[in-house]
């Protein structure tokens, strides 16, 4: 889990263990400034440089052309035109991630609630079952999904018995299904963490007092798992937005999502500055989303801590 939301109402009983000097943190900070900060800076710098005529790398000449090229295309007939291709790529990444987030959320709430209401022993096992995929390589999980949904896979074979043709591999639904599959545990676990803390007698009491079932869900259960939902949304949407493997392996190697276009520009297409400009745009969009999530959480009185 990467983001943790905790209600601020929780009493602050933080002790200060150890009298360690803040100097201890200097080395990790210097290391991260080198290994994380500089690469990010390099991407920003690259995005303002020219592409060398031979491709690959950068030519140290300042330009804003790469950002212009995101929206405006110099056509081969000499005209310039508004270019929707990269807006479409960003939009595709956005709505794939949105669908993934919504679908995983819809499935995760019942699952998290269900697990939270099992008895302790069974609960441990169920949590382990949801956690296990988190420890398994995303590559292998995506590959497994590809085998299942392939035309000649089990679904295809089964439907073949009824003469129904099945062919979704290498299409947008396949990519989205792959994203849902891979990120589902990232949604279930934080919601479960919230649900586990919930006192279920509260809901039963409300019901005894005359609340309708949906009222109980809306007024009591949902608010209490809200911090988990907010974490889950962040944990699914953010990595889905920058995902590479699912689109590559299930979408037919096309550059449908922004990460695939970035990767292609640093590979075969050999246009590093343009790939960097896209990367900067992706960073901005991601940060924007983080701010929105934090805003929502704060308004709701939850404190969202990333990390």
């Amino acid at each position, binding site marked *: 889990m990467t983001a943790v939301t905790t209600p601020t109402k929780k009493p602050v009983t933080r002790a200060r263990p150890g009298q360690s000097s803040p100097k201890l943190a200097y080395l990790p900070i210097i290391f991260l400034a080198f290994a994380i900060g500089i690469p990010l800076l390099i991407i920003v710098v690259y995005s303002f440089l020219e592409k060398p*005529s*031979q491709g690959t*790398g950068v030519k140290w000449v300042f330009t804003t052309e790469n950002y212009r090229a995101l929206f405006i295309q110099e056509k081969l007939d000499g005209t310039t035109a508004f270019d929707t291709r990269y807006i479409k790529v960003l939009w595709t990444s956005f709505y794939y991630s949105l669908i993934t987030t919504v679908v995983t959320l819809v499935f995760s709430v019942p699952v998290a609630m269900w697990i939270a209401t099992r008895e302790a022993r069974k609960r441990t096992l169920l949590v382990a079952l949801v956690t296990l995929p988190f420890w398994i390589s995303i590559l292998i999980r995506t590959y497994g999904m590809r085998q299942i949904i392939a035309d*000649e896979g089990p679904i295809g074979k089964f439907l073949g018995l009824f003469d129904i043709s099945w062919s979704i591999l290498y299409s947008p639904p396949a990519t989205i299904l792959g994203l849902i599959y891979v990120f589902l545990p990232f949604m279930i676990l934080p919601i479960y963490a919230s649900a586990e803390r919930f006192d279920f007698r509260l809901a039963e009491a409300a019901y005894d007092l005359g609340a309708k079932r949906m009222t109980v869900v809306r007024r009591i259960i949902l608010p209490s798992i809200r911090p988990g939902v907010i974490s889950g949304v962040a944990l699914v949407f953010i990595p889905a937005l920058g995902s590479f493997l699912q689109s590559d392996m299930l979408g037919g190697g096309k*550059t*449908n999502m922004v990460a695939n276009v970035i990767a292609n520009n640093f590979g*075969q297409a050999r246009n590093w500055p343009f790939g960097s400009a896209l990367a900067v745009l992706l960073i901005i969009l991601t940060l924007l989303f983080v701010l929105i999530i934090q805003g929502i959480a704060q308004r709701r009185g939850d404190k969202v801590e990333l990390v």
Partner: protein
Amino acid sequence: MASNKRRRASYVAALAAAGALLLSACGGESTAGGGAGEETAAAGAFPTSGSGEVHVYNWTDYIDTDELKRFTEETGIEVILDTYDSNETLLAKLQAGATGYDVIVPSDYMVAQMIELGLLQDIGVSTFPNGANIKDNLMDAYWDPGRNYSAPWMYGSTGIACNATAEPGCANITSWKEYFTAGLPKMDSLKDQVEVVSAALRATGVAADDLCTTDKAKYLAAQELLNGFKPAVIESDGGIERVVAGTSNVRHAWNGSTHRMKVEVPGVEYIYPSEGLNLWADNLAVPVGAPNLDNAKIFINWMMDPKAAGKQSNFSGYDNGIKGSDEFMDEALKTDPAVVVPADKVALLSSTPNCSEDARALYTEVFTSWQDSQ
């Protein structure tokens, strides 16, 4: 055990040296290389066994790994293999500073481009003991006249593979134009800017000798044709697997990979498009900065042996540039019209275009524009 291996290795070395002497004695014309490599040409000077490793960077699914084991047994050199999916990816990786590969496998035009960029080493291939095995027509290749930088590997053509049993709609395709406008389900494209764009140029009426044009109007026409072409898959790797599994039925494909599809799925046909198709020749070469230069030379020389070349052909499905390798090639390969070009199709073949920087930029432009608008 170890000493046994060493003994066998030196025995093989002696045999190879003898073979090299024999060959150079037979083929008097192979000394055309000139005086520069004279001292290494002496068979005794060329090492045939070594130690350590050789890092080979090759196309995906393009080398028989059983043969690599035989190479290791005979020479004592371990092969470490990495793979790529296109000439451009290879170039990108080398330009990004991947020093450490000893042997790479660029195609014709890419050899020319890499020599121009100073990325390849002059290793005097023609003076290697097995240098005389190079087929005459590949000896004076335009990308490396006299064969100093590169040794021939496989060669073949790029056309269309059609599984007519699964997709009868592709059986009537006779041209690139029909292929790009077929609009069939389960179409599968190479992810290769030179192949895709040159095919689209041919489809829009550009002649074979004009494929490196810098006339933007011609690229615009190709781009417009490509606008309507939306294959399910754009991926050079794994094409054989997809066609065999039935995930793809029509593919822009190399002839050797089509041969391998045919072996598994008899309904597959190789189509020679009527506008003509690219004839390419891949090569073994050594990048500048290769850490194991001697091992790279041993590897390349070993692969120029007729038996080794024949075995590689049997694996990959392509003909190769080594004299006498036919003897070791499977009958199925020698009788496949995808591999052995039928007489009436020979005229359709022309070399993969080796374009100027300006034309290359236009190829990249058309290709990425198509790729990113899928």
